[in-house]
């Protein structure tokens, strides 16, 4: 199925909730004393692993796999500015698919929210329930974390929609398959992995945030001579973080092409190694790699990212549509270090 055919797949409530928050029509219920447990995927991504390379298991790969659809999903968020009561932010997500060498995308957003201490709880509950089917979402995170959380909801929703739409595809996530043991996201992630398995899809989660270093202090974990290969570092990860994190995926270090980077790759733990090898080989046969990173995911990231010009444009939109005036323009120049990286200080001060 072409992505263009998925235009019906649209997070309408995302749009509506955002509008409501900007128009201040969302019902405001303050439930700040509720469950303090935070739901965060990011914690599982940010590991620092020191590994003894010789002890780890190297799995050589062959780039001769069968070509299958590969779908990369990424989202991004940006804080557009502060108002007297809260934060105005924008989120956007992109799905990029490659099949038979043809790349296409569908991009959702931007969705704009005005998050205040007054509306963040209801906003959070609505999002979790509407998009992730989580009725007991718990307490919303602090205001500063809400933007990131909204982005995360959009990302999970897109990932799930793709899993439920396609069969026999490789679905590339940005992040890991690990989460804090107390996290409410574990059940969601388990459900999403199961749904993917049921439709013969494979989720490959690439994480840029995990720092991988060999024991002797060398810079790269897997020598370029061994590319393409996977290094099984699951045991190291679990030994280091097993107390705090639940690993729903088997953890590998992936050196898919000779490059300066080795990325952490999590694959559904219930997938046999032989199937993992087969699927990663399919990835090699189906998608390009940019610095060892899947092109689909890279493009999804590039297309999602807010550029400084877009940020100024969004300020203008908010001003014209909702009467917010940016009092102090953001230092957008700060965000141009590196063409596609870093949102920089995009904050303005809105007067409403």
């Amino acid at each position, binding site marked *: 199925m072409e*992505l*263009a055919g998925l*235009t019906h797949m*649209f997070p309408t409530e995302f*749009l509506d909730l*955002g509008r409501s928050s900007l128009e201040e029509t969302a019902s405001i219920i303050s439930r700040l004393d509720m469950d303090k447990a935070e739901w965060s995927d990011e914690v599982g991504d940010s590991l620092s692993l020191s590994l003894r390379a010789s002890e780890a298991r190297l799995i050589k790969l062959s780039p001769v796999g069968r070509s299958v659809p590969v779908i990369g999903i990424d989202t991004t968020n940006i804080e557009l500015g502060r108002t007297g009561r809260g934060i105005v932010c924008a989120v956007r997500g992109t799905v*990029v698919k490659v099949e038979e060498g043809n*790349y*296409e*995308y*569908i*991009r*959702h*957003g*931007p*969705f*704009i929210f005005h998050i205040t201490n007054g509306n963040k709880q209801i906003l959070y509950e609505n999002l979790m329930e509407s998009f992730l089917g989580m009725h007991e979402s718990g307490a919303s995170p602090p205001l500063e974390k809400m933007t990131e959380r909204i982005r995360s909801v959009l990302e999970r929703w897109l990932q799930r929609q793709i899993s439920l739409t396609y069969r026999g595809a490789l679905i590339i996530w940005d992040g890991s398959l690990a989460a804090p043991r107390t996290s409410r996201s574990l059940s969601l992630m388990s459900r999403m992995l199961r749904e993917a398995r049921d439709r013969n899809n494979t989720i490959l989660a690439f994480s840029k945030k995990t720092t991988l270093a060999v024991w002797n202090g060398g810079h790269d974990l897997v020598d370029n001579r061994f590319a393409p290969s996977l290094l099984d570092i699951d045991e190291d990860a679990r030994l280091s973080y097993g107390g705090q994190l639940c690993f729903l995926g088997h953890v590998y270090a992936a050196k898919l092409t000779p490059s300066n980077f080795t990325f952490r790759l999590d694959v559904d733990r219930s997938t046999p190694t032989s199937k993992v090898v087969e699927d990663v080989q399919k990835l090699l046969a189906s998608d390009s790699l940019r610095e060892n990173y899947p092109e689909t995911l890279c*493009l999804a990231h*590039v*297309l999602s*990212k807010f*550029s*400084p*010009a*877009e940020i*100024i*444009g*969004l300020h*203008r*939109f908010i001003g*014209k549509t909702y009467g917010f005036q940016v009092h102090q323009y953001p230092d*957008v*120049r700060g*965000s*141009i270090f590196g*063409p*596609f990286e870093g949102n920089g200080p995009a904050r303005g001060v809105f007067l409403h």
Partner: protein
Amino acid sequence: MMQILKLDGNTVDIIACPPEDIRKGDYILLNDAAANAGLIVQAVNAGYANIPGILEDLLRETSTENLEGVDMDLLGTQSYVDAIKNAKVFSCKIRRAVVDGYLNDDQSWTPNRSTTFVRKLPEEEVLGLIESRLEEAIPLGSFRGGTPVSIPLSGLDGKLTIVTGKKGTGKSHLSKLLLLSLLERGGICIVFDVNGEYVGLGDKSSNGNSLAEKVHVLYPGENFRTTLAYMGLRVFLSIASSVLDLPPNSAWEIRRIWSALSENNALTLKKLGEAMNAVSNSYIREALLRRYESLVASNLFTDDLREASTIEDWLNKCMDGGALIFNLRNLGAGIRQIVVEFILVKLRHLLEDWFVPAVFLFAEEAHLYLKETYWEDLVTRMRHLGIFPTFITNQPDSINESIYRQADNIFLFNFTNENDLEAVSKATMTDAHTVTIIARELPPRHCLVLGKVVNDFPVIVRVRELQAKTMGETRFFFPSTAKTRRPEKLSLNFNSTAGSGRLVPT
């Protein structure tokens, strides 16, 4: 919305977001209502605003080249982003200040950035700046938007005008328009037509040219010949010394011969030749005879009174407005100089005698027949006598810098050559920036008008069509090539976005 971005000397940078349809040459008013004052500025250059991170955007679009997709931007924010990305900065030159509703030359006043309202002046308002409702005017053409533009007659009367531009841009067309407009209003015009381009104006069979009767095409040596007696010794000596480089001692001899023949009522070409042949000093004789042969070769002079006419004869036909077109096309360089010198010296005398009050002189490529020493004389002394020159050239560097400095009006057509632009930019009536940027981009038949005729507000005008036969008669080997080439529709596919790096929107 437009705002002042930067003010630096005579230059104001204006930022427009979303971008407004402002073209080079358009006028913008910076109106500081609080100060009851404003500045009238003219856009001379346009560029994209230096939007932070635009490089990132462009790189992103490049990296997603050939990627088809759908944007589910249901809030419709893209148009706002596009407006930012397309924000323009217009570099403008201050032309005049406005204080209490009146034009003011004091431009030292600085508008308040936050209280100044910036708006494009519509063509009708620009017209109000350059035109006087009280004066008789010549319809010149129209602005880009179609608003008709006229120039006041007073802007040409008594003025030095330069029409310049590269070949084929419309210089001669404009000159003919000015010429016909002047004679329509009773002006007397003299044209030195070096390429035979003006002869068509006298074509009485040409449809719509009601003024053909007023145009007299003169072919020196053919329908325009005169006698030595009419020329007179003063004119003869002037031609002999300035055009034919006659040495002073030979000039004394010719003065003696001429006086003697004149006293005996025998001043004919034949007798003059015989007298020169009889000069005993061989050096002087040879010098005189060589000049004599040049005069004879010009065929301008005749001893047959039936063939002879005078400038006065022809000017008499123009007293209610008319033009004498001297077709110099088929004349050699030396003969051209003799003819022009003869006419100018005669004209000077006629003006000194108030035979005519003044004449408008149209000189095409004057460097081909005017000696350098004559230029200054023409634009200073002769101008005060009543010869109001219009120089038409496609070689701007052929006109002395001092002429540009004294020019009252310049009609500037397209130039692309850097040297040409540099030569024109020396004109003091505007800044070099305006000239070099705007002149380079003028389409055919469009000119930048500078000077008195536009009240010193440079404007771009599309010169109107003329009913008269205005085309020169160019000779072709292949007659089919003589047809004007019409623009053909390009076969480029403007609907394709493939490879453009543009994302496909919903």
